[in-house]
């Protein structure tokens, strides 16, 4: 069989073609999971709310710009009623989507980054590094991390003050993000380490080492791409957890009242006694949003895990 030598351009085209085929194949398999697709639709909807809250419902209302009376039930003017300050619940919930999703996203980035770095380093380097890192990981797995988050948040807030701004983000928000990240990376690290351990034994890693690749290079170029599938599926599940944790922390009063995430809204519903007053419209809309988003992430995460990690698929 004779074949013309491939030029660099041909090679690049071939690589793009292969990658494209991979994506199409992935999309086709994912589309077969109906629960995953439903989850994606829900998430797209909330992403839209989070991206354009002002276009959809106008600027975020405050105590001074509240248009209605306190605790008005749903009406034509206020489709979801008003809160105890007379703000439209629709306005609050849509803006809450942005705040909850942004905190969830940032906290997920911190969590997955920490988990991935620790997991890959631990799995690849092995030996004493592995032992020490995994001891710390196990410690965080046993610890009730929510309680740790609960006491870390006020300490850090007292430490840096709650009025400051870090990288253009209010410091209260940064603290919540960091606290969630620092307390929830452990299970990600465990999952990724176990995969890194098996990737490390593959032939291409040995080859890379033989031609003199440094540890950092091998971890970044060879181990990381091969645990990426796990990282992606895990990220989606971490996102769900981060939103739940943020909601719970805000609910017990660690949120920023000026940045009403869904949890902060639920906190003010609770402190104003809405359930006891029968003002269901105050807490049902944000609750429904939380449940929908978390459920959607869980479904998408499960579907992704099935599609991306085929070895698990055989079992289910």
């Amino acid at each position, binding site marked *: 069989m004779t074949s013309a030598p491939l030029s660099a351009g041909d090679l690049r085209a071939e690589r793009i073609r292969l990658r494209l085929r991979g994506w199409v194949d992935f999309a086709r398999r994912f589309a077969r999971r109906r629960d995953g697709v439903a989850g994606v639709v829900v998430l797209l909807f909330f992403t839209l709310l989070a991206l354009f809250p002002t276009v959809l419902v106008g600027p975020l209302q405050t105590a001074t710009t509240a248009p209605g009376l306190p605790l008005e039930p749903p009406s034509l003017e206020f489709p979801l009623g008003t809160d105890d300050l007379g703000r439209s619940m629709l306005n609050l919930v849509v803006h809450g989507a942005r705040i909850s999703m942004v905190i969830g996203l940032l906290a997920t980035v911190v969590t997955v980054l920490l988990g991935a770095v620790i997991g890959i380093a631990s799995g690849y380097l092995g030996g004493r590094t592995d032992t020490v890192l995994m001891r710390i990981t196990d410690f965080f797995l046993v610890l009730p991390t929510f309680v740790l988050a609960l006491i870390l948040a006020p300490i850090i807030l007292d430490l840096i003050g709650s009025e400051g701004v870090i990288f253009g983000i209010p410091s209260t928000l940064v603290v919540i993000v960091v606290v969630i990240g620092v307390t929830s990376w452990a299970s990600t690290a465990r999952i990724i380490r176990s995969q890194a351990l098996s990737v490390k034994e593959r032939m291409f890693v040995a080859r890379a080492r033989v031609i003199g690749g440094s540890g950092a290079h091998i971890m970044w170029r060879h181990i990381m791409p091969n645990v990426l599938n796990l990282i992606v599926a895990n990220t989606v599940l971490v996102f769900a957890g981060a939103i739940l944790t943020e909601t719970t922390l805000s*609910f017990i009063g660690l949120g920023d009242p000026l940045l009403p995430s869904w949890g902060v809204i639920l906190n003010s519903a*609770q402190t104003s006694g809405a359930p006891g007053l029968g003002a269901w419209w105050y807490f049902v809309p944000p609750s429904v949003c939380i449940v929908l988003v978390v459920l959607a992430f869980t479904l998408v995460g499960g579907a992704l895990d099935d599609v991306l990690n085929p070895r698990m698929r055989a079992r289910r």
Partner: protein
Amino acid sequence: MGSRYLARKIFQAILTIAFIVLLNFVLFRMMPGSPDRVLARNLPEAARAELRSRWGLDKPLIPDQLVAYVAATARGDLGASFKFNGRTVVEVLSERIWPTIILFGLGELIAIVVGLSLGAYSGWRRGGPIDYVGNGFSLVLYSMPYFVIGMILLLVFATGLGWFPTSGMFSLGHRFDSFPEQVADFAWHLFLPLMTVAIGLIGQYSILMRSSIIDTLTEDYVTTARAKGLTDGRILRSHALPNARLPAVTLIAINLGYVIAGAITVEVVFNWPGIGTLTVIALNARDYPMLQGIFLLLSISVVLANFAADLVYGYLDPRVRT
């Protein structure tokens, strides 16, 4: 049970508790300046210096302060609360712990029985109507924070229908003529928070047990049992369930940390006078000694529960008893 397994588990638990105590020390020494700045904010410098030396804050952090802290903790002395004037942390905690233990002990019990049965049944009849409905419900419950369940129950059954009280543990200002009457009042107040905890947990436990059962059903020993001609019920009871129980035990123990997060919020919704409401009071007042005590209490409870789960696991699974 093998003594080596036991010894290893005891050693791990002790090590973890030592780490927790150390973390507690480090965390609360991170506070701005030193504790005397919070406590003695408005005092002149001389008086503050005197307080510092009385509290031992002028000594070096390591080893003097650390040793003093560890010794005090070991004696069960967690200091005095800022918020509850003059009372010690241990005093307040020991008064608040019983409502929480009753609420969560009973809630866990109900959830374990109902959740595990539901999960086992759905997994066994995978794809059947019960599985379909049960799994859907479990997934929704799983995505729902505990306090949302609580607020809905409160709205419907307390505010709306008026069947149950909206808050507290006993009717206020009421004189009880007899002990049974008091117990009845207590149970009446307990019902809704208890249901909240149970419902919240049932979702998690049923999902967990369902996937655990599904995993065992593909195992060879189940095929063998089927080939022997055993009835379905017999296979489930004597072959699938005992094995599916194992991961459930571990996961229930691991879950306990999350359950505590739920505990705190459920108590807030129903104003249940336990550790959860105490946590929120302490948070709002920035009562650091109290928060420190709560952290210590809750984390050590979780470690001990994990230890207990390891023992149960060792008892249920002969393979690990070496």
